[in-house]
């Protein structure tokens, strides 16, 4: 076979070889060749979003929900620069993406041509790797390398910049074997280190596991559960780790850190051993680093060596894939260590129970005004946890993390590292494509939802039954909370009030369904109605604007110095979330 085909055709062939079903994208001048090939193609669907940022977040939501690589395709210049936030979001959370950007013809590169941007230069610090393809003969190999880099080791986004003449040029299609001598991720943990760790765990009187997003990425939930149950070690999770260990499990302490549970933070601070698994000691987790877990030895398992000893001291570093390391660790514990720890653990778990009894995760219910936590709780109860939840960023995100108990991996999609407002809705669209049968709900705020509200068109035209629950407090709530607590209630530019649009009308204008609840008694009927309708639904929950996210560790404080809700008079009814 010596048939030459166009670069655009080679690209599409390569994507099919990689098993791609959906591309999230937006057309433009220099990617016309590619879009033309897609016009006639039956197997690969391009999902047209209404903004390039939406395309990348949708690809990201698809990737997080499915575990596959998400793919986006945009044009040069503004199309490419609009992807930057999406790429940086994926980069911070280690999400495998391959983003294709059009580029002006190779001869014009560097000439400040129309719609030219040095996107390779711009995205260098926020991609795992990026390419500029200068020769059509290199195209298929580049695509293969990009998918390999994006999905292996610690995953991340990869960008491929495609000059117009490369997609127009012709070459034979080949699908070469790749071998990258400069990129060899470490998967197997050091056996000796794992044994050391197992012995420390057996001897520890007050151990705690901190599970992060790495557990979910490597698919190690089963191994983690086995480890925790066998050793009776309680598990707390980072925001990215939620769902990696069942939130309703008796050993689960919920989330730790700035808005973590009191008992999780107390357990970490008081522990004599931390087993950190696939997490990176972000400042939102550690609080004041110097005061973090002062008595604890730290075992740190991560596939990325740079995560280890970056923020905190580590006693037993184990570089490797979480699933493989935990498999070996469980084996070592059962076959070599064989210590009895029941009695020691009992005292520790009792202490944690006492902390939980002292300060459970609560909020004050009201009959008059909707409490946002109440909405999240009702969503959890009505879905029985069997849904994919995305969030925006801010209070909506934290309340979701606190009051929705994620039992399964890949059921919470949230921008943890970068903290991108506007992530949740397009991510929910991507997740719905990955799981057409599942209930997908974006828990949003009135500020965040307006950052990518144009994607209503994408959801409606594709008949996606995505639900958006807007916790509408007419404020940029998290920033307002900080202003209330630390800036003497000077609400500088956080009050949206009269400028908050009518979300019901907006939904309807796009052809979606809009529902509203203004009283607590309306919450459940609205949710039930929304879940019944097989269409895109916006739910506008008009909630108490004064509500704050508690507990809270002020920035720069140790994580056991927490602020709690001040209850003035005795509440009529206090709802307690199960831990």
């Amino acid at each position: 076979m010596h048939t030459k085909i166009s670069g655009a055709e080679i690209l599409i062939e390569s994507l099919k070889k990689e098993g791609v079903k959906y591309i999230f994208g937006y057309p433009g001048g220099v990617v016309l060749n590619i879009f033309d090939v897609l016009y006639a193609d039956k197997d690969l669907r391009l999902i047209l979003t209404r903004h390039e940022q939406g395309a990348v977040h949708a690809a990201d939501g698809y990737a997080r929900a499915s575990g596959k690589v998400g793919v986006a395709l945009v044009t040069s210049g503004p199309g490419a620069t609009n992807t930057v936030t999406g790429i940086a979001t994926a980069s911070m959370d280690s999400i495998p993406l391959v983003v294709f950007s059009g580029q002006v013809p190779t001869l014009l590169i560097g000439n400040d041509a129309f719609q030219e941007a040095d996107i390779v230069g711009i995205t260098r610090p926020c991609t795992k790797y990026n390419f500029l393809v200068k020769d059509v003969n290199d195209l298929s190999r580049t695509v293969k390398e990009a998918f390999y880099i994006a999905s292996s080791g610690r995953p991340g986004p990869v960008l491929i910049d495609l000059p117009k003449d490369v997609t127009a040029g012709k070459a034979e299609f080949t699908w070469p074997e790749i071998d990258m001598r400069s990129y060899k991720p470490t998967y197997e943990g050091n056996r000796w280190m794992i044994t050391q760790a197992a012995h420390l765990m057996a001897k520890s009187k007050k151990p705690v596991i901190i599970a992060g997003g790495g557990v979910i990425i490597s698919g190690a939930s089963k191994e983690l559960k086995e480890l925790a149950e066998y050793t009776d070690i309680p598990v707390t999770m980072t925001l990215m780790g939620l769902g990696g260990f069942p939130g309703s499990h008796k050993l689960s302490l919920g989330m730790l850190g700035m808005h973590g549970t009191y008992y999780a933070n107390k357990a970490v601070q008081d522990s004599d051993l931390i087993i950190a698994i696939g997490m990176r000691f972000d400042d939102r987790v550690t609080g004041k680093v110097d005061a973090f877990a002062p008595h604890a030895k730290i075992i740190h398992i991560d596939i990325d060596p740079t995560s280890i000893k970056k923020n905190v001291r580590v006693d037993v570093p184990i570089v490797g894939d979480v699933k493989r390391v935990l498999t070996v660790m469980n084996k070592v514990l059962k076959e070599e260590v064989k210590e009895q720890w029941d009695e020691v653990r009992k005292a520790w778990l009792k202490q944690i129970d006492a902390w939980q009894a002292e300060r459970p995760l609560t909020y004050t219910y009201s009959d008059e005004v909707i409490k946002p936590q109440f909405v999240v709780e009702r969503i959890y109860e009505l879905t029985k946890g069997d849904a994919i939840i995305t969030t925006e960023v801010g209070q909506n995100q934290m309340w979701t993390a606190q009051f929705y108990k994620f039992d399964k991996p890949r059921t919470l999609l949230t921008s943890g590292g970068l903290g991108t407002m506007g992530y949740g809705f397009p991510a929910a669209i991507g997740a719905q494509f990955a799981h057409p049968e599942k209930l997908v709900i974006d828990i949003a705020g009135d500020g965040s939802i307006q950052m990518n509200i144009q994607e209503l068109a994408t959801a409606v035209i594709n008949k996606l039954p995505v639900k958006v629950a807007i916790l509408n407090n007419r404020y940029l709530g998290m920033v307002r909370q900080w202003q209330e607590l630390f800036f003497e209630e000077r609400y500088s530019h956080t009050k949206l009030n009269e400028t908050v649009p009518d979300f019901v009308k907006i939904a309807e204008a796009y052809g979606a369904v809009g529902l509203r609840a203004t009283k607590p008694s309306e919450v459940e009927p609205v949710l039930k109605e929304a879940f019944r309708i097989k269409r895109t639904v916006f739910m506008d929950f008009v909630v108490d604007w004064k509500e704050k996210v508690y507990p809270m560790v002020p920035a720069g404080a140790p994580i056991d110095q927490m602020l709690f809700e001040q209850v003035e008079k005795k509440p009529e009814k206090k709802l307690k979330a199960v831990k």
Partner: protein
Amino acid sequence: MRHTISVLVENKFGVLSRISGLFSGRGYNIESLSVGETTDPQISIMTIVTTGDDWVIEQITKQLNKLIDIIKVTDMTELDHVEREMVLVKVAPKQENKAEVLNLTEIFRGRIVDSSQKTYTIEITGDEKKIAAFVELMRPMGIKEFVRTGKVAITREGVKKK
């Protein structure tokens, strides 16, 4: 503490920018950086001189290793190695100092590579201390221009006693 790190990289465009971007993005220092091809034209070697405590240096070497185009990172400071740097110094000595300049150049095993009525350009190769000493001695002679290559380093091979 100052460290000399030797980095073997794929000879592709953008590699230098990835490395310098890593240093600037994470707030690390580059004191000097030199790049050149190896015997294999597809591979380049960079010698980076940087400073930081043990934590920082460990992060720098790990972060460098993490970059996709980097084949190998060696912290030369931990190994027995030879370091060299070359400087070109253009001095404009007064008539009465000319002999001293030539004399010092001789002592430091330097070479005069250019001269004019008013100036000498001297090439000096050596380690950091030697170069620093030479520069100090030339300073009173009137340095007009001064360029340096940045350090290069190579490990020493042990010699076995017979």
